């Protein structure tokens, strides 16, 4: 029997920060000390704290080592595994803790989280079904198999679970429609085509706990009377797909998938469809078209998939996170537990991907109703480099930005929508005072324009014109009536676009205008970008009060625009300066400021 268990994060995030090398080093080191029999090494799913990866958690001691490099391994093995003492220097350290922290309960990043969907991520070996079972896996399924379809649907309805993919439609209701729809064949489809920039919650769930998704889909199938399902996963998620395939194979082996499942005469078959990564395929009707081998384009609803979905058959389609919630609700006593969490209108937890100018980037799962402030400052550790929080973009390209004054907004479907954003799939992009909101809107719109399926006129042509206006504004060519233009176009698109993506794609623009109108006006009327992003709308200058003449800026400047003697104030020549910003990063005094472009007029008098 093993004495120690080294759970090393093998999810995409940590892999990219080098966990594979660390794993290799561990293998060698363990072999060197003949510890293979004593110590078990597992590549787990994502424990969320990508910022500090690669991560290893050692059980049973529950010690959390982070930022590991291969060269740390000998010491780790030496001290911890052989010597039994904790390696302080590899523990988590940060401004938010006074002493190096050991684990969940002591690391602030984890303190306010509530693990439902991520309950197994980082804790079990996602390629071993037994570990899932021992954590209570497939209990919900075997319970559901004993229930009537309508009983299952009732519990899902009573749980108040709403779709985690974006719109937040009540899942139980969706199932009921599909159950009641007539059809000789019905399908269960999982939308794993996570397309929002910066979002990776679905990937982490699939990589960390694939069986949870399978179990959720199996229960859905039992409820609506389906015998076949599709998981539409983007091809950019090879690891997720590999783990899904393994999981399906193991589940078949155990009799959870296939013919006469667990002897209840219930059959179910999984298919995995790899998506080509078109953003629009995240829209359900486009996704279904894509599975059918057609071009991924949305079609009008009604008919909704519940009545006419895949190949015209009644179809339940939910996203990964939604399905991962199902086993928790359906297992013995799960429902009661589930409804305790969250708010009236939004039950349970939500997984968010923290990105942008936030200290602790990564994945977190929080109870609905928690405030943005808690997520960003307590869990996220606040803004990088102690700068000033400006806004957070919630819900990706379909979402909107929320400004500082709304930081105490409770995170639930309805409050977010009121604030002009959406829950979306759970991307949170945090912005500091160096983010230009006009440029942000431009960025999201260029994304939606590029990804528009091109079918309906408002989206195809409208987003193009909005984008062109925003580009003009950021280049200093904005006109006084541009804001009205933008708002008019936006409302047309919202009101008349064909699909959900189209109808929501103006949100980033509308919300930035709503909360940061002055920035737009400054761009248009004063030709000034105070965030120092729109290059033709500002100059850099060095504040003599702060400059100590260290010459670091002059040395880093690629175009030699900065002059000045040692220990003397330096000067930037705006004619030469390309506003690359490298000097700003370089300056320890924060002496390099953004200022209005000096025009001939100003010079003359």
């Amino acid at each position: 029997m093993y004495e120690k268990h080294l759970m090393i994060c093998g999810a995409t995030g940590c892999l990219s920060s080098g966990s594979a090398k660390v794993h290799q080093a561990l293998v060698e080191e363990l072999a060197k000390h003949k510890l293979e029999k004593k110590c078990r090494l597992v590549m787990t799913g994502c424990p969320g704290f990508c910022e500090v990866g690669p991560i290893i958690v050692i059980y049973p001691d529950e010690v959390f080592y982070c930022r590991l490099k291969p060269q740390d391994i000998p010491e780790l093995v030496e001290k911890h595994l052989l010597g039994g003492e904790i390696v302080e220097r590899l523990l988590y350290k940060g401004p938010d803790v006074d002493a190096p922290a050991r684990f969940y309960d002591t690391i602030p990043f984890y303190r306010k989280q509530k693990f439902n969907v991520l309950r197994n991520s980082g804790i079990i070996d996602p390629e071993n079904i037994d570990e899932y079972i021992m954590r209570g896996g497939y209990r919900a399924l075997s319970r559901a198999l004993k229930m009537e379809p309508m009983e299952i649907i009732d519990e899902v309805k009573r749980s108040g679970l709403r779709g985690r993919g974006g719109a937040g439609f009540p899942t139980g209701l969706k199932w009921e429609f599909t159950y009641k729809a007539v059809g000789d064949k019905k399908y269960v489809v999982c939308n794993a085509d996570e397309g929002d920039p910066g979002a990776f919650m679905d990937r982490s769930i699939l990589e960390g706990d694939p069986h949870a998704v399978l179990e959720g889909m199996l229960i859905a199938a039992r409820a609506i009377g389906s015998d076949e399902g599709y998981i539409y996963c983007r091809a950019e998620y090879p690891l997720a797909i590999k783990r899904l395939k393994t999981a399906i194979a193991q589940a078949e082996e155990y009799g959870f998938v296939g013919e006469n499942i667990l002897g209840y005469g219930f059959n179910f078959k999984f298919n995995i469809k790899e998506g080509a990564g078109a953003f629009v395929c995240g829209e359900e009707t486009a996704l279904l078209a894509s599975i059918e081998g057609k071009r991924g384009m949305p079609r009008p609803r009604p008919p909704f998939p519940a009545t006419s979905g895949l190949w015209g058959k009644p179809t339940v389609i939910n996203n990964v996170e939604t399905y991962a919630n199902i086993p928790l609700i359906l297992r013995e006593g799960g429902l009661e537990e589930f409804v305790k969490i969250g708010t009236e209108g939004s039950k349970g937890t939500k997984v968010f991907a923290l990105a942008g100018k936030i200290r602790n980037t990564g994945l977190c799962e929080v109870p609905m109703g928690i405030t943005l402030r808690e997520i960003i400052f307590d869990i996220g550790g606040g803004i990088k480099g102690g700068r000033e929080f400006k806004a957070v973009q919630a819900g990706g390209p379909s979402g909107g930005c929320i400004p500082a004054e709304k930081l105490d907004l409770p995170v639930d479907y309805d409050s977010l929508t009121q604030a002009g954003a959406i829950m979306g799939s759970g991307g949170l992009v945090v912005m500091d005072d160096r983010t230009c909101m006009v440029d942000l809107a431009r960025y999201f719109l260029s994304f939606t324009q590029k990804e528009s399926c091109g079918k309906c006129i408002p989206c195809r042509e409208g987003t193009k014109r909005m984008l062109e206006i925003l580009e003009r504004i950021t280049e200093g060519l904005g006109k006084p009536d541009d804001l009205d233009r933008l708002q008019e176009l936006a409302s047309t698109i919202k009101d008349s676009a064909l699909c959900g993506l189209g109808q929501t794609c103006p949100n980033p623009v509308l919300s930035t205008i709503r909360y940061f109108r002055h920035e737009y006006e400054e761009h248009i009327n004063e030709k000034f970008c105070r965030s120092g992003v729109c290059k033709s709308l500002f100059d850099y200058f060095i504040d003599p009060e702060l400059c100590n003449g260290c010459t670091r800026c002059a040395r880093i400047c690629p175009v030699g625009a900065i002059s000045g003697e040692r220990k003397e104030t330096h000067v930037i020549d705006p004619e030469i300066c390309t506003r690359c910003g490298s000097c700003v990063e370089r300056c320890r005094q924060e002496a390099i400021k953004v200022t209005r472009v000096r025009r001939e007029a100003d010079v003359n008098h």
Partner: protein
Amino acid sequence: MKRFIDPCCEKCNHSKETPCKDFVECCTNGPICHEDASCAAKRKAIIDRVALNEHFVIF
């Protein structure tokens, strides 16, 4: 594939061809289909061994 919960005795005949309704339950609180002290003990031993703390299961 190698399976963690092996049949506790010849009475257990779960397989994908002959599936047992109580298989999942049996994995964690088995055996269900018959009373047998030694089988129960076998199971308990495994469970105790693997269920190390509420975060964690060991194999």
